[in-house]
C-alpha cells in the first residue's frame, strides 16, 4: 500500500454543549504507516476509547481530518456515505475480550466478514482457513469458540480482524485477559501480521508487559497525544 496506513490531523471530539461540554479529544495528530504497530497508552478517561471510536468510524469527530490509505475519510465531516461498509472492509477490530460469535464455529467466525462483504461462502472459508493457519489455529477451524483457550480465541479474533485485508486494525487492550507469555505471543503475532499483510495496527493498552515491544508509542492525556519513540526491544 502506498502512502499512510492511517493519518489523523487536528482531530477533536466534543461531547455536549455550552457549560457541560467536554473536550474528549483536542487537536490529536497521529500517523501509522502500513506494516507498523504502534501503542496508544494513557490513563483512564484520557480519551483512548473516544479516539478508537473515532478511528473506527463508530462516532463522529467534531473536527479534524482522517486519511485511510490514500483516501480522506473525514474532513470536518464524513466523506463516505456507508460507514458500515468502511468498518467492514477497511478497518479491523480486536477487542479486549475476543467477542467471537458463540454460535458460529471458528472458521465461520473468521469467514463471516468476507461473506458480509459479498464473497462466496467457499472463497470466504478458504481465506479464513489461510488466516487461521497463519495464526497457528488452523487445526481448531471446526471447533466452537467455547472450546478454545483464551490465547487461541484472541488469535481467532485477530484472524477475523484481518479477514477482509483492511489497511488498519484497531486493537483495544487485546492482551488484557492474558498472562505474560500469551500477551507477548499476541503482540508478536500482531507485528508479524502487520508485516505480512502490510497493515497499520494501533494497539490501545495498559499492559506494561507489552509496552516495551512497540517501536512507537502515542501517549494520550486529557485528550491530547504525545509521541514517544525507540522503546522497542526487537
Amino acid at each position, binding site marked *: 500500500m502506498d502512502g499512510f496506513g492511517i493519518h489523523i490531523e487536528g482531530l477533536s471530539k466534543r461531547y455536549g454543549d455550552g457549560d457541560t461540554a467536554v473536550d474528549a479529544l483536542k487537536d490529536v495528530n497521529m500517523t501509522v504507516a502500513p506494516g507498523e504497530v504502534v501503542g496508544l497508552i494513557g490513563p*483512564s478517561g484520557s480519551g*483512548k*476509547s*473516544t479516539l*478508537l*471510536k473515532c478511528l*473506527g468510524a*463508530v*462516532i463522529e469527530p467534531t473536527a479534524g481530518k482522517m486519511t485511510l490509505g490514500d483516501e480522506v475519510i473525514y474532513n470536518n465531516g464524513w466523506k463516505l456515505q456507508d460507514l*458500515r*461498509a*468502511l*468498518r*467492514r*472492509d477497511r478497518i479491523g*477490530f480486536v*477487542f*479486549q475480550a475476543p*467477542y467471537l*460469535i*458463540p*454460535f*458460529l464455529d471458528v472458521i*465461520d467466525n473468521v*469467514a*463471516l*466478514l468476507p*461473506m*458480509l*462483504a459479498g464473497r462466496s*461462502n467457499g472463497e470466504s472459508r478458504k481465506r479464513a482457513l489461510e488466516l487461521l493457519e497463519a495464526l497457528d489455529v488452523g487445526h481448531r477451524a471446526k471447533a*466452537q469458540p467455547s472450546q478454545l483457550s483464551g490465547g487461541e480465541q484472541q488469535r481467532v479474533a485477530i484472524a*477475523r480482524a484481518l479477514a477482509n485485508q483492511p489497511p488498519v486494525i484497531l486493537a*483495544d*487492550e487485546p492482551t488484557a485477559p492474558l498472562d505474560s507469555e500469551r500477551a507477548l505471543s499476541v503482540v508478536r503475532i500482531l507485528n508479524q501480521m502487520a508485516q505480512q499483510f502490510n497493515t497499520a495496527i494501533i494497539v490501545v493498552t495498559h499492559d506494561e508487559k507489552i509496552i516495551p515491544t512497540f517501536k512507537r508509542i502515542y501517549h494520550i492525556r486529557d485528550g491530547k497525544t504525545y509521541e514517544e519513540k525507540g522503546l522497542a526491544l526487537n
Partner: protein
Amino acid sequence: MISLAGRDILHSWSKFVLTGIGLGLLIGVTLTMAGVYRGMVDDAKALLNNSGADLWVVQQDTQGPYAESSSIHDDVYRSLLSLPGVARAANVTYLTMQVRLNNTDVRAMVVGFEPGQPGEPGYLVAGRHITRNHYEAVADVKTGFQLGDTIRIRRHDYRVVGLTQRMVSSGGDPMVFIPLKDAQEAQFLKDNDAILNERARTAANPSLNRPGVPGLLEAIQASQNANRNVNAVLVQVLPGSQPDTVASEVRRWKHLQAFTRVQMEEILVAKLIATSAKQIAMFLVILAVVSAAIVAFIIYTMTLGKIREIAVLKLIGTRNRTIAGMILQQAMGLGLIGFLVGKVSATIWAPFFPKYVLLESGDAIRGFVVVMVICALASTLAIRAALRVDPATAIGG
C-alpha cells in the same frame, strides 16, 4: 451467506426445542378450541343429514325441534302427505335425557321414529334395525352400549339390537333410537302417581265432574292420559319439487312452521351454537394474545442475552437487516416448532375429548399463518432492541 439464525438455533437447540414444546402445547390448545367449534358445527350438520329430511314441520311460531320445544299432533303427517310435492312424512320425537346402563347414567338424545321412515338411523355398524313395535333400541356407539345391553328409559327396559355411529344431537349427545310410540310415552306420559293425582284433581273439579253428564269425567281423564303429540314431522319432497315451495304451502295451509334444510342449518349453526362459538372465539383471541406475549418475551430475552454479540456484529459491518432477519427467523423458527408440536399434540389428544373435535386442514393452514404472523409481530420488540444497540459498546471504556 450463512444463516445466523439457523446457527444460533442449532447452537442452543435444547433451549429452542423446550421453548417450542411449551409454545406448541399452547398452540395445540388453540387448535383444539377451533376443533371443538368445528365439531359443534359438524354435529349440527350430522344431525340434519342423519334425519334424512328435506323439511322440518314444527309447531307454529317456534324454531323447533332442536333449538326450541315444539309439540304437534301425531296425525298431522297425514295431512302433509296430501300436499303436492310431498313424498314421505313421518313423526319424530326428540328428548335429551339420562338413560341408565346398569348402574350408570348416560346422557343421550332419545329419538322416537317410525321404522322405514325419515328419522331412522341411516346406517348401522353392528346388529340390525328395529323390527318390533316396542322395547328395542339402536344406539350410537358413543353411548358405550353394546349389542344385547339392556337400557332403561323412564319405566321401561329396551334391548340394544343395533349400533350406529356419528348420530348425535346438536349438543354432541349420542342418540338412542326407539320406536315412536315408546318415545311418545317416555316424553309425554306421566308416571302412575301423577296420573292418580291428576285423576283425583279432575274428579274433584265440579265443572269437569258434573252429576248430570255421565261419561264426561272418564272422557276427560282418558284425554289427559293420552299422548298424541310429537315434536316434528320430517318431510321428504318428491324429486323435482322445491322444498321452499312445499314449505310455503305448509305454512300457508296447515298453520304450522316448516323449515328447509338451509333454514334449519341457519338455526342450528348461527343461533343454537352462536353463544358457544363466541365463547370459543374469545378463548382463541386470548390464546393468540398469550402466545404472542410468550413469543415476544422469549425472543426479547434471547436477544438481550446476545447484546454484546449484536454490538460486535454491527461494529464489523453487519447490516441492520441481517440482524433483524436473524431475530425474525428465530421467532419464525420458534413458531414453526411450536406449530408442529401443537398440531401433533392436538391430533393425539382430540379423540379423547368427550365431545367431537374436528381438526380441519384449512384451520391448520390458517393457524400456521396466524402463528407465523404472531411470531413476526412478536419479534419486532426484540428487533427494535437489537437495532438500538450501539456498536460502540463493543469497544471498551
